[in-house]
């Protein structure tokens, strides 16, 4: 290599190193300058040196969580002094105890001998051992944790004194063992009843019940209870008081035992029809007979001969010739399933009294038009089920039952929303009819 070129390269390298060194020194000087300025702003404490993250986080955000601030309060200082005094006092106490033991050995002989199993009083031996004074202090925090006194323990002397070490037992364990010993002692006594266990808190009071636990307190909709009395009570609790006008009309309509809870429930079912409809029914001498708890429909005198022996009739029926509605008590008490028979058959009665001779639904153009539309399966027209499609009377009664339903049925066949969505014209007609009859 050319020596001239080599000299030039060395000189260039030297200049570059000097420049780099100068820039580094300049940056270091600037950094120290910034740090000193920050330190003077923060109560003359150089937080930057203690905590490098502080610059990026911001002092105000750290607040009292700043670990560098720990130990600077007066309380911490006071605690450290108290701790040092305690450390100084402990060796003295140990020395005094040793001297006392050496001098007090003859006194122990005169002391009352401890019985087997008797528990000594807690001693200070169980206190934690103190680190040697000469040990270097690594960290104050670690010392604080290390010097934290454990829970007080007791020593139980063994039956065979001497070689075996004493067992260290915690106080709560001791209490439990004493209770267990007491119970075993009582068990050992022949033919004596076992000791009553300490009263445990009632499980129902203390244990947590999940909100999803519907085992008690909630009624499942798919459970069909046969306990009529219980259902009666449940229904009674939710019944509001009827207005005097409605109560007077229902009392004139219903014939039955007014003291029975089913009577009150029936009043509320009929009250859904409104004052105008009930007044019309009273004028047309409609009768609603509520059978007793021991009576059934097939055995009633008005029903005999109307059905074949094989035909099973459920709960309620309407006798057009006699303007009479017959209801079994179970039909009123139980939560209706599918549809509400009381409302359905009183709708038959309402339909019957609206027509002078025969049923009004069979003469109403609106009902017949909707009925035929449903029969032809036109869009926006549907029967609730096959029974509703038997005749315009059944169709009208089902529409009224759906209109007056209050979501109190289990597995409802046809709700008010269904009537509104799937047979709007019939809904509008029933709505108009009730508003006109009740003059709302």
């Amino acid at each position, binding site marked *: 290599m050319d020596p001239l070129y080599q000299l030039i390269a060395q000189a260039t390298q030297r200049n570059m190193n000097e420049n780099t060194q100068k820039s580094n020194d300049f940056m270091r000087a600037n950094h120290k300058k910034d740090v000193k300025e920050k330190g003077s702003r923060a109560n003359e404490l150089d937080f930057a040196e203690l905590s490098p993250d502080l610059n990026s986080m911001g002092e105000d955000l750290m607040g009292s969580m700043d670990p560098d601030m720990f130990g600077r309060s007066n309380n911490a200082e006071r605690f450290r002094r108290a701790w040092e005094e305690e450390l100084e006092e402990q060796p003295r106490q140990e020395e005094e105890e040793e001297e006392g033991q050496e001098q007090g050995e003859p006194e122990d002989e005169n002391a009352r001998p401890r019985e087997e199993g008797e528990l000594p009083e807690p001693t200070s031996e169980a206190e934690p051992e103190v680190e040697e004074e000469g040990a270097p202090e690594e960290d104050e925090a670690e010392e604080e944790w290390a010097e934290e006194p454990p829970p007080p323990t007791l020593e139980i002397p063994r039956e065979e004194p001497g070689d075996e070490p004493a067992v260290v037992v915690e106080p709560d364990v001791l209490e439990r063992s004493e209770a267990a010993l007491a119970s075993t002692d009582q068990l050992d006594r022949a033919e004596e009843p076992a000791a009553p266990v300490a009263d445990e808190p009632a499980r129902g009071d203390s244990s947590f019940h999940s909100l999803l636990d519907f085992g008690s307190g909630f009624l499942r909709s798919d459970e069909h209870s046969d306990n009529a009395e219980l259902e009666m009570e449940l229904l009674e609790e939710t019944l509001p008081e009827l207005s005097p006008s409605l109560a007077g009309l229902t009392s004139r309509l219903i014939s039955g035992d007014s003291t029975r809870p089913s009577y009150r429930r029936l009043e509320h079912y009929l009250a859904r029809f409104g004052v105008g409809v009930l007044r019309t029914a009273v004028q047309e001498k409609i009768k609603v007979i509520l059978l007793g708890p021991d009576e059934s429909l097939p055995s009633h005198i008005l029903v005999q001969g109307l059905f074949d022996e094989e*035909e099973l009739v459920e709960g309620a029926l309407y006798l057009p010739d006699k303007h009479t509605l017959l209801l079994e008590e179970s039909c009123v008490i139980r939560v209706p399933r599918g549809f509400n028979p009381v409302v359905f058959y009183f709708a038959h009665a309402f339909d019957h009294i609206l027509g002078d001779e025969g049923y009004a639904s069979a003469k109403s153009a609106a009902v017949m038009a909707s009925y035929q539309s449903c029969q032809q399966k036109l869009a926006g027209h549907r029967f609730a089920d096959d029974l509703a499609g038997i005749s315009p009377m059944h169709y009208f009664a089902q529409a009224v039952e759906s209109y007056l339903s209050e979501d109190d049925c289990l597995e409802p066949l046809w709700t008010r*929303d269904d009537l509104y969505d799937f047979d709007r014209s019939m809904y509008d007609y029933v709505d108009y009819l009730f508003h006109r009859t009740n003059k709302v």
Partner: protein
Amino acid sequence: MILFPLRPVAGGRKPGEFPVGSVHFDGQEVKIDCPDRELRARLQELFFQPLRIRIARGDGEQVLAHGWEVLEPGTEAHYAACVARLHTFGLVPG
């Protein structure tokens, strides 16, 4: 038969735009095609279980009454009654 969901709209419930499945009865057995497992299980419970329907009692002139009849699955009447109750699941046949 294609099944559509019922969607709540301003004027009540209307059939949705997209079908959720289909149900077919071949005279002996009901076949359900529904990708939604939960809905398919509910449909199977409806179509493969006995169903209780209302039936009219009395002649209509002297007495109006009703009774209940249980329909066994696998019949045309049972299938029709099940289809009529699809609205309880929020479905409507298309």
